[in-house]
């Protein structure tokens, strides 16, 4: 049994069912007057069928068990977790604290993931933010959130 395909197939089936219900709510229409949900209906139906086929294949597979935990074996997955958390927090605080503060903190976390010395992490973060601000704000005229200090 291929657990990976089974779990992903189940997830996709749930997505297909959800989209199918949305398509029915929108109205599929008829073949001569297709409605807003016409393409969604057929694509989600096909998607659902394919995900069922995927799950059947996953269950029928006899050669070796492909577990989920093995996907991250021997890898530094903590780097990924820290990075994703940093990305989400950056998103949430960008407008509240402003680009300069949010980005400095974000870059410091990312450089810290690389396990460099503290002064290199902070220095690199500050230099990166300064250069980014100069290039994108002054040269390319992109407006960044200024935060409470109006920086």
């Amino acid at each position, binding site marked *: 049994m291929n657990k990976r395909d089974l779990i992903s197939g189940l997830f996709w089936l749930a997505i297909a069912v959800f989209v199918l219900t949305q398509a029915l709510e929108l109205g599929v229409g008829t073949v001569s007057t297709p409605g*807003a949900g016409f393409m969604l209906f057929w694509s989600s139906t096909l998607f659902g069928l394919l995900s069922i086929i995927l799950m059947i294949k996953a269950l029928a597979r006899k050669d070796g068990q492909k577990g989920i935990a093995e996907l991250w074996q021997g890898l530094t997955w903590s780097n990924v977790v820290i990075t994703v958390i940093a990305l989400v927090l950056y*998103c949430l605080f960008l407008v509240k604290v402003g680009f300069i503060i949010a980005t400095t903190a974000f870059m410091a976390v990312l450089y810290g*993931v*690389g396990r460099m010395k503290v002064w290199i992490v902070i220095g690199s973060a500050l230099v990166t933010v300064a250069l980014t601000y100069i290039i994108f704000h002054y040269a*390319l*005229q992109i407006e960044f959130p200024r935060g409470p200090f109006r920086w």
Partner: protein
Amino acid sequence: MDALNGLLYGFSVALQPDNLLYCFIGSVLGTLVGVLPGIGPVGAISILLPITFKISATGSIIMLAGLYYGAMYGGSTTSILVNIPGEAASVITCMDGYQMALKGRAGPALGMAAFGSFIAGTVGIIGLMLFAKPLSGFALDFGPHEYFALIILGLTFVTYLSHGSMLKSVMMACLGLMLSNIGLDPITSSPRMTFGILELFDGVGIAPVAMGLFGIGEVLVNLEQTITQEIVKTKFKNLFPSKLDWIQSKWALVRGTLVGFFLGILPGGGPVLASFMSYGLEKRVSKEPQKFGTGAIEGVAAPESANNSAASSSFIPLLTLGIPPNVSLSVLFGAFLIHGVTPGPLLLKDHPDLFWGVVSSMYLGNVMLLVLNLPLIPMWVQVLKIPAKLLYPLILLFCLVGAYSMNNSVFDVMVMIIFGVVGYLFRKFEYEGAPLVLAFVLGPMLDLNLRQALLVSEGSFLAFFTRPISAVTLGLAALLLITAVLPFVAKKVAKYREVAEDQ
């Protein structure tokens, strides 16, 4: 003469100082992207997409096109020096290129890759110039039935795009179609799957999706791995192939150029497939096939000429039919739409400056790349030494800034991050993002043309088969699907026969 006049007009556009600068920037960045393993042209085009908002449509496309074919030049550098392909179309160059480097012939290998790329790229551009107008004229007769059939043909090639499971590729294409329906319905204007979120009324943007899947996703995958690479230490005294090298590889260059040109036009083809096919062809026709893999110069000349020729010719369906033939050009297609330009048969008529400007800039870009690549190889070698722990945070930052700058909206950044995680999980669970992006880009056109066609023909599907262009195109799509599925069915039948015989 028409094409020649167009080309001269195009040069007047491309040689404007700002467009020349954008061509240069695109070519340099493309080479850099090609040199650096980890981010391919798709990710780079996606990351640069928002930055092009600030410049003209012509300048944007010139820059992004330069990035695309520039990556084909740069990819060979790492393949030859480090045995790690800078991008997918240079994978096969590792086979003989690195072996040549180990034998102290890195210079001629790099030189042949650069010259071969230049010659083939130029031929590809000439083909683009000659075929574009007749093809555009032919496509003006297309109605919704023909466009629907053409898009189905393009989506059928999704099955050939997959490196792994075809079933999963088709699933991802369906997912891309569903995602493309988010937003306001183009016919009834009713909101579809917007869940009351105002930002979704315009749909999900191609840039956050592509940047997430191919930029963020790629970085996340690389963050958890430790790659050590040793660069071949060699002096680059002589970057020019010898007379014997040219004699040995002249037919490889010709065949690679032709294979690349035709595969580049086909949806699902492109530089990656072209490079593999041309290498296989060279090995097949060679009188000494055993030398391939040990440092044969033909093993560098063929794939490098094929991928550059394909990179040029793949613009033909994009610019003339409005059908992006591969995922990189799908993102470039998004760049056109963002600037309010629709690629297709009317592009030549409505925006001749853009069309001919891009074609002419490709000539200039090829010259720039030939000049850049050879003398700057020692510099690219230094770039390769930038530690990943410095490089990846910078890539993430560019993605964030780029996504934010599109609409000054954190929502786009969030979408990008979500797709970044999705892209990462795709790699883990062996799904591919390319079919999703291709279907995502073609989805709105498919939906609109299908519904228009059914409205016009009052629900009759027969109309798709009574119109000759539509019928032939759908027939071709069916044939391709059958040939893709046949080997699988044949294997199953053989397996059942074996079991039956055993019993």
